[in-house]
């Protein structure tokens, strides 16, 4: 989230799309209720189903699953063509004024530089025009035909209300009402928040969904202000923290990059990422990348990391190709993976195309499951009849199921979706024989290291160089590990004038103290400050809120730098004055930036320097035009899902995202509309959390079995009765469940054709207390977003029929 849960109370319009906070995040949703009750805020929900969020909304608009970009682009078109934008904000805080290279072009759904054989783009024509002074060229009048604003006007002009309705099935009046409510906030007087979740990410164009939402918020001036923001509600309790830590194939903690084969030296790695400003006086914070990267290496390799050996750079594994989870299972499917460790992860349930996953797992030599509860994955080799029809005798995988402590039996910190790091204290002893993840992995690592000491082997030096200086090497404490994440001074640190700023051994107070010469460590720069010289701030529990704006600055610690609203410089105009009294937040008081939050940059930088709020971008401004940073285009385009019931009404020649990756082994797995005419989407239930609570008695009682939500019209057409059993199948497999015939779903008219949608809750499997069911990912396609590789779980094709005979 750019903002926080408690900040939602400051908003005037709440737009929920691609999520269902009332059911998936009920205790966060209360802040929507607060805003409605106390400020008269309006709630609008756009969703294929009339969800419980929709049930309390002031306006609901239906949409076909997978057509969000057409809808959002329609809103962009409405704003720019009707001049309903926050002009000063757009001029000063976005790249609307920047000129794009003359080589850039867009035609029939494709940008310049497309190579069909590689399914990828040469993105060189998507860059800014650079002037003689080395800075990007701007036209502050926004009139130049090649400025981003003019390109945008042209690009989005196709997404008229008529086109939106044709593509999305949303009635025009319902779409226009959304546009009007959005536009009502484009003035600095009012704010809108956008709340989304996996309904936007799980598409072959998921990243562009979110980016289009960001564009809308920027056009309205809703980023960096109270009650604004693009707010990812997020899934697991620490998915934010674990994303930050970066247990992701191409990551190093704190959004640094794992080096690749093409970066043989530390210098070559740093040179690609140390961005210099593209405008005068800009922060361009990634200029500090070397400080963060070297500090990470110092935490990783300790004393063994020296300037002479480039701080151990050679020991880091180098990436040949990104093994995102879809590629991971593809590699396994091809028999090229021998071992898999699953820690609190149940891929049989959560990876697309379950039958492919089972084949892959069956080819492993060993599988280790570390989890407090038994997972479907730990028992993938077990025959569960129609729900998991395998022959154990034919599966040669050795499987370990290790008992891990539950959330109350360990201590440590978690980061919520507001980026707030909060400590939890251990409440109980470990149940049964369970042990913490930290203890299990430490012992395993030390045992492996001992084997290498005794026997030698491959890659010994990197392994032996890893820094393991914990008081009890077999079980480092959470306190020690958080201190290591934060970082410390390794020698006395002095500023440019020679004054001592931090003594050797002292914890760092901020990432601003990090150095690139090896004199500081710190595993994850963005968390620096959470455990500074004054102790563990994640343990702070002061819930006072002096401004009354829901800031809670002394509760836990929000990264970065305890900032609660990111880009808060944008809450004031270019002269440093609040846009309005109603939205007053951070402002220039003549001496410094002040207000209830931590400013984006040095507090004494005066407004005259025009230092932009978007400090991570070398431009200093936000990007309506994303340059070459996304695989599938500098602007969003409506592409159909890989399985779609219609020909793309906007660009008939192009169906799925042209830059999305499709594995050769998967080309045959996609179903066609003639055979599978119905759009399916997945979602979770308020009573269940993913695949855990099917093991929890109370939740299994409340919501005991899988069902299929269908419209009354589809039920009539197929002869399906409410409560009757149905079979739903895609080109990859089938599932069975009871039909819930409901008014919550309605057939839509898409490009003149009636299209039905069915809703499939994702929480049920073959292990646990709920009634056995085939995992819903038996049906879903193994294709991911072109940028993030998040699988397309939210829009695919199925067919449905009633099962005649006795119902269990």
């Amino acid at each position, binding site marked *: 989230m750019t903002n926080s849960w*408690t900040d939602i109370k400051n908003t005037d319009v709440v737009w929920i799309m691609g999520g269902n906070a009332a059911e998936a*995040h009920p*205790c966060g949703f209360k802040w929507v209720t607060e805003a409605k009750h106390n400020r008269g805020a309006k709630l609008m929900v756009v969703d294929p189903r009339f969800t419980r969020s929709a049930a309390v909304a002031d306006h609901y608009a239906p949409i076909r699953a997978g057509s969000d970009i057409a809808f959002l682009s329609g809103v962009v078109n409405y704003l720019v063509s009707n001049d309903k934008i926050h002009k000063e904000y757009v001029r000063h805080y976005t790249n609307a004024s920047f000129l794009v290279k003359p080589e850039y072009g867009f035609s029939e759904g494709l940008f310049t530089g497309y190579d069909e054989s590689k399914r990828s783009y040469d993105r060189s024509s998507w860059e800014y025009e650079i002037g003689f002074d080395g800075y990007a060229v701007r036209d502050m009048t926004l009139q130049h035909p090649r400025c981003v604003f003019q390109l945008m006007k042209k690009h989005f002009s196709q997404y008229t209300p008529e086109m939106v309705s044709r593509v999305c099935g949303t009635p025009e009046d319902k779409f226009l009402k959304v546009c009007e409510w959005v536009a009502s906030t484009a003035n600095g007087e009012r704010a809108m928040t956008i709340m989304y979740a996996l309904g936007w990410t799980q598409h072959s164009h998921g990243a562009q969904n979110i980016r289009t939402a960001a564009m809308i918020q920027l056009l309205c001036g809703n980023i960096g202000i109270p009650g604004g923001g693009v707010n990812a*509600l*997020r899934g*697991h*309790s*620490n*998915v934010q923290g*674990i994303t930050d*830590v970066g*247990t992701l194939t191409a990551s190093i*903690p704190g959004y640094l990059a794992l080096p690749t084969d093409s970066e043989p030296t530390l210098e070559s790695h740093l040179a690609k990422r140390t961005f210099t400003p593209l405008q005068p006086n800009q922060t361009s914070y990634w200029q500090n990348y070397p400080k963060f990267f070297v500090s990470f290496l110092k935490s990783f390799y300790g004393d063994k990391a020296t300037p002479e050996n480039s701080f151990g750079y050679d020991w880091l*594994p*180098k990436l*040949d190709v990104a093994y995102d*989870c879809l590629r991971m299972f593809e*590699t396994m499917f091809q028999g090229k*993976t021998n*071992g898999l460790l699953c*820690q609190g992860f149940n891929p049989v349930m*959560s990876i697309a195309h379950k039958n492919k996953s089972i084949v892959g797992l069956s080819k492993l*030599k*060993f599988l280790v499951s570390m989890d*407090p*509860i038994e997972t479907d994955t730990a028992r993938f080799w077990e025959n569960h009849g129609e729900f998991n029809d395998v022959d154990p*005798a*034919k599966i040669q995988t*050795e*499987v*370990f*199921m290790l008992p891990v402590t539950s959330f109350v039996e*360990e201590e440590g*910190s*978690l980061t*919520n*979706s507001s980026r*707030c790091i909060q400590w*939890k204290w251990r*409440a*109980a002893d470990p*149940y*049964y*024989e369970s042990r913490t*993840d*930290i203890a299990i*992995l*430490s012992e*395993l690592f030390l045992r*492996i290291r001992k084997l290498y000491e005794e026997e030698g*082997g491959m*890659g010994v030096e990197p392994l032996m160089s890893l820094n393991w200086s914990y008081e009890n090497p077999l079980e480092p404490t*959470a306190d020690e590990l958080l201190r290591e994440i934060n970082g410390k001074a390794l020698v006395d640190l002095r500023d440019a004038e020679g004054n001592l700023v931090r003594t050797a051994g002292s914890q760092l107070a901020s990432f601003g103290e990090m150095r690139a010469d090896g004199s500081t460590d710190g595993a994850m720069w963005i968390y620096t400050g959470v455990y500074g010289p004054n102790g563990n701030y994640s343990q702070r*529990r*002061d819930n006072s809120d002096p401004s009354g704006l829901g800031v809670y600055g002394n509760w836990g610690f929000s990264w970065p730098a305890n900032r609660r609203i990111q880009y808060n410089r944008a809450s004031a105009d270019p002269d440093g004055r609040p846009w309005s009294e109603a939205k007053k937040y951070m402002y220039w008081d003549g001496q410094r930036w002040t207000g209830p939050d931590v400013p984006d940059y040095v507090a004494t930088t005066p407004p005259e320097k025009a230092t932009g709020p978007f400090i991570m971008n070398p431009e200093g401004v936000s990007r309506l035009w994303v340059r070459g940073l996304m695989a599938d285009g500098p602007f969003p385009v409506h592409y159909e899902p890989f399985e779609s019931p219609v020909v793309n009404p906007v660009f008939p020649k192009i169906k799925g995202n042209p830059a999305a990756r499709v594995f050769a082994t998967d080309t045959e797995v996609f179903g066609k509309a003639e055979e599978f005419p119905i759009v399916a989407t997945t979602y979770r239930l308020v009573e*269940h959390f993913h695949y855990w*609570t099917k093991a*929890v*008695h109370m939740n299994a009682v409340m919501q005991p079995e899988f069902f299929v939500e269908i419209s009354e019209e589809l039920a009539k057409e197929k002869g399906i009765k409410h409560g009757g059993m149905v079979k739903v199948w895609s080109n990859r497999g089938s599932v069975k469940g009871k039909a819930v015939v409901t008014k919550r779903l309605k057939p839509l008219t898409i490009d003149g054709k009636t299209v039905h949608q069915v809703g499939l809750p994702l929480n049920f499997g073959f292990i646990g*207390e709920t009634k056995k069911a085939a995992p819903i990912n038996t049906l879903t396609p193994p294709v991911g977003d072109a940028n993030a590789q998040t699988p397309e779980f939210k829009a695919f094709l199925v067919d449905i029929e009633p099962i005649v005979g006795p119902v269990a």
Partner: protein
Amino acid sequence: MNIEVSRRHFMKLAGAGAAGSTLTALGFGEAEAHLAAHVRPFRLAQTREARTTCPYCAVCCGMMVFAAPNKENGGKLEVTHIEGDSDNPVNRGTLCPKGAAAIDYIRSKTRVKHPMYRKPGSDKFEQVSWDFAMERIARLMKDDRDANFIERNKDGITVNRWPTTAFLSGSSLTNEGGWMTYKVARGLGMLQLENQARI
């Protein structure tokens, strides 16, 4: 800084107060004191209280967890009750149907109780010792790493990677557990490292 302490003290006071004689001093009459002497102390006064966060979604609601020693289980501290943390500014004491039932997660029937092992081709798990499991896993990992580790790529560039073993990391684990996972996986040279953020 940590209100946990003051709340606990309050509970203890409230519990101890019910013991009798002090009640008169607090202004209770004889009859009330007599009655109060027979009232059992608050059960919560006998428990240890800790602040935690809900394990489920990323709202990370604050929770108060109450635990007491289980005499039938060697005095192990076990959870007796969970409720929302009313001091938490986000959830303000509320919990949803998942969080409110979280105690049933801790004592789930399908909780993994012991290290379990399934032999190749077998149709069952068997209970093993931690020592057996750790030794066997360490051996399997080392053998696979030795057989497939790449120190240099075909162009002679040092790459130090182990491409044949994968790690799916949990996203409900603590930041500290995540950092430990990162360290071990990358320290061994793994590239196939992912978590739920992708899905």
